[in-house]
């Protein structure tokens, strides 16, 4: 009986890996299905545009030969199924096509701009998590059982108002307060660490408000659970009860929502980038929509979509590791 536990482990591991395998298969299946929808939608986009997309892109004055040449280049003259096949083949080779306006490969433009957007979204996500979780936990502790009514009211009120302000408006407000009025941070562009402050803040304030409210509600619910009473019966310190026993259970819901927030943060960058002239994907997708540069739009939408799908998958896997029931219990 003194021998290490390894002898007892194999049957369990077998059972576990079986469950985990099923989870992995299911999750991969869902990811692939979503990817297919995304790719097909981005392919169809150019065909769903009413009228002649190339004519629209090049303008009414462009010579007919040029329009035809572009169509030829985009493969728009082939039968639809063949175009679809070609599109998929090119995607598999990492070829996203060539921009109509700049004549540069779309992949190159995106690769150049993607880091700026990813940095922005990630920094804002981290900031909102770092702020929201402690604030939510502390608010839950000090407003439990009807204590601190005024604090609670102020907290909820602030949250509702902050949650109702869209990120680009925060952007405008921050530019006004911290760049125009006080000249503390640069107004626009991406140059040096201080240029990150305003865009990241603009993106993070709203999610932080929403998230801290969720963390508080979750913590309050978890604090009523029987296993918290068990933890107190073990006479652990209140700090340990809150952090080790309550928080991991509140985090499940927080992470689910946090994942949603991260993917909406990715989308929110579009607006915020335009406020701060941030050289990311957001600025380029808007200008390419306006200039009807469809290959660039297609490629950018695809990259955003894949980003969101990857985030959702990572969140699901993280959830499964944190709370195995969510992976195994699900049918």
């Amino acid at each position, binding site marked *: 009986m003194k021998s290490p536990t390894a002898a007892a482990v194999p049957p369990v591991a077998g059972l576990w890996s079986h469950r985990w395998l099923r989870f992995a298969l299911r999750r991969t299946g869902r990811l692939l299905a979503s990817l297919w*929808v995304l790719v097909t939608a981005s392919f169809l986009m150019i065909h769903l545009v009413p009228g002649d997309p190339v004519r629209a892109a090049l303008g009414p004055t462009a010579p007919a030969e040029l329009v035809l040449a572009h169509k030829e280049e985009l493969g728009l003259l082939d039968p639809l199924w063949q175009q679809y096949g070609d599109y998929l083949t090119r995607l598999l080779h990492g070829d996203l096509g060539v921009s109509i306006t700049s004549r540069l490969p779309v992949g190159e433009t995106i690769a150049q701009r993607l880091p700026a957007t990813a940095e922005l979204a990630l920094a804002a996500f981290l900031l909102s998590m770092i702020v929201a979780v402690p604030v939510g936990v502390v608010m839950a502790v000090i407003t439990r059982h009807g204590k601190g009514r005024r604090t609670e009211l102020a907290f909820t009120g602030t949250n509702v108002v902050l949650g109702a302000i869209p990120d*680009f408006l925060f952007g*405008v407000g921050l530019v*006004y307060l911290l760049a125009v009025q006080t000249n503390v941070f640069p107004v626009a562009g991406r140059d040096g660490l201080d240029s990150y402050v305003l865009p990241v803040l603009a993106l993070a304030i709203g999610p932080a408000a929403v998230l801290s409210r969720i963390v508080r*509600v979750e913590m309050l619910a978890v604090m009523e659970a*029987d296993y918290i009473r068990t933890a107190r019966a073990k006479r652990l310190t209140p700090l340990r009860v809150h952090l080790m026993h309550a928080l991991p259970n509140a985090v499940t819901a927080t992470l689910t929502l946090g994942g949603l927030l991260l993917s909406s943060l990715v989308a929110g960058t579009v*607006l915020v980038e335009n406020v701060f002239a941030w050289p990311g994907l957001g600025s380029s997708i808007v200008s390419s929509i306006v200039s009807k540069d469809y290959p660039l739009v297609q490629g950018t939408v695809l990259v955003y979509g894949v980003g*969101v799908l990857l985030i959702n998958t990572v969140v699901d896997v993280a959830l499964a590791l944190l709370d195995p029931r969510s992976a195994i219990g699900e049918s």
Partner: protein
Amino acid sequence: MRASRVLLRPVGFAGFGLLAVVLFVAVFGPVLWGDRAAVVETGNLLDGPSAEHWIGTDNLGRDLFSRVLVAARLSIVLALAATAISMVLGIVLGAAPMLVGRRLGRLITAGVNVLVAFPGVLLVLFFAVIFGVGARGAALAVGLAGAPAFARLCHTLVAAVSERDYIAAARIAGVSKIRVLVRHVLPNIAEPLIVNATMAAGGVLLTFAGLSFLGLGVQAPDYDWGKLMQDGLNGIYVHPLAALGPGIAVVLAGLAFNLTGEAFAAAFGIGETSGRVRREAPATADREHAVAAPEPGAVLSVGDLRVTIPGAQNPIRAVRGVTFAVRDGEAVGVVGESGSGKSLTALAVARLIEQPIRVEADHLVFAGEDLMAGGDPESLRKRLGTSLAVVFQDPMTSFNPAHRVGPQLAEVSRFHQGLSRRAAFARAVDRLRAVKIREPERRARQYPFEFSGGMRQRAMIGMGLMGTPRLIIADEPTTALDVTVQRQVLELLAEVRRDTGAALLLISHDVSVVTDVCDRVLVMYAGRIVEELPAADLRTLARHPYTRALVAAVPDMETDLTRPLAVIPGLPVDPAHIPDGCAFAARCPLADDRCRAVEPPLLSSPAGDRVACHKAGQPLPADTVEVTA
């Protein structure tokens, strides 16, 4: 009636007031301020705020305040149109799985689920490409982009309503699917849908402002709030209010929709409602008991314990002065109906009751230390953590689902006995083995949900054995378990007591469990001890009519099964309204006027038994106890 409830709440009042203002401006804005908003004053280009122009002028010298007011109509109309598109499409997609065949329905649901995973802004941009730049295209784009979320909501609601009996009845009666949907399902999901649509309208308003701000929505010469902000942002150095003014308008209008939606939700009982608990000043409890000194030689001695729950109207006195002792190694049972205060007594003794529930006592001495006296919390924690074990009622919920079982046990040794992680885990495995869990090494690495109920309860006892318990408090430890498993758990408790010499305080509503396991029994009623006697005497020598009724209510081998089983007539006392006199008088066959007026004191007999009854030991009229129709 509901409308008045909505308006009475401050949130609802603010929401409706704001919404009324916004709608008024939207309807009459262009009429009232339309002309003024179009006046070009070339002498006042990009002016700052003045008495004439509250938030200044734009690059053509037009009054911005008027323009913000005029823009309300287009902003609101577009937002409502987009919301309507989302809602209609959402209802169609959400209800479709109910109408079309199973396979197609599943496909639609799966498609909706895929789309919901993408953030709204991304969908909006996608559709904006297809429908082109401009107000109409943007409205379609925002509307379509919002549809999946509505479809998901609608589908969930429809699925919930479809389970109800009247829908099934309508189906069986041969009512067509469409008719069931229109007549029975939709009316029942209308409330949450409208609430969500109201809140969604606020969000759509902001999204639309974003689109116009990006230059993808409303185009010049038309303008909505987003467009005004776009124009304003360029001049933010010279004239910040030009961008902030319309921004504030957007936020206020968005809030108006949100708050109204939330107020509706609260009034309809959707979503969270916060209960308010009034806090009470410490009540001067009626202290009828002589203050008893802690009993020497007892592991636990409780003197005049009172537990009070602050209520909305008056505080509930759930435990009203309880005095008892548990000697070393002794097993004491506490029986009573639900609401008798027995569980709260156990939790209060274990010092596990939290604010706002109040616990008071003359003394609460455990292992020679008065727990009410305070003292160093750190050393107290250490001592209680190792010498007082608690076993809770529901083993299914008493383990933390986020941690493995072994570490949950090991925690006690790590934090109170200073063991290393590895040593503590080894002890946890050993303790699991001690409570007869097979393959303890493997089990210790599993999560609680992989344990059966009986196993968890044994693991919970094992957790109590991590230290060297002098007292085990078990609060209905077998209530949630199967009968066969109950037996195992009780035997385990008995064995643990034999091995460790720990005393046991067993809370149960089950008289037979208590008589089997315990040496002495306390009978509680309405927050007081009404009788205390040796467990062996419970069936034969009980003197309180309530105890006798409790015993009579338990069938045994001699029970005449041709007669109806005995029950105690009447209902337990509502702890919020405890009558004068004996709390049991209303249900007692022996009660007279004195019982109803004077609460009987708990008197000790020379043998050490206690009873609180004016009629203790008097013969019961046979017919009233045994038979109840």
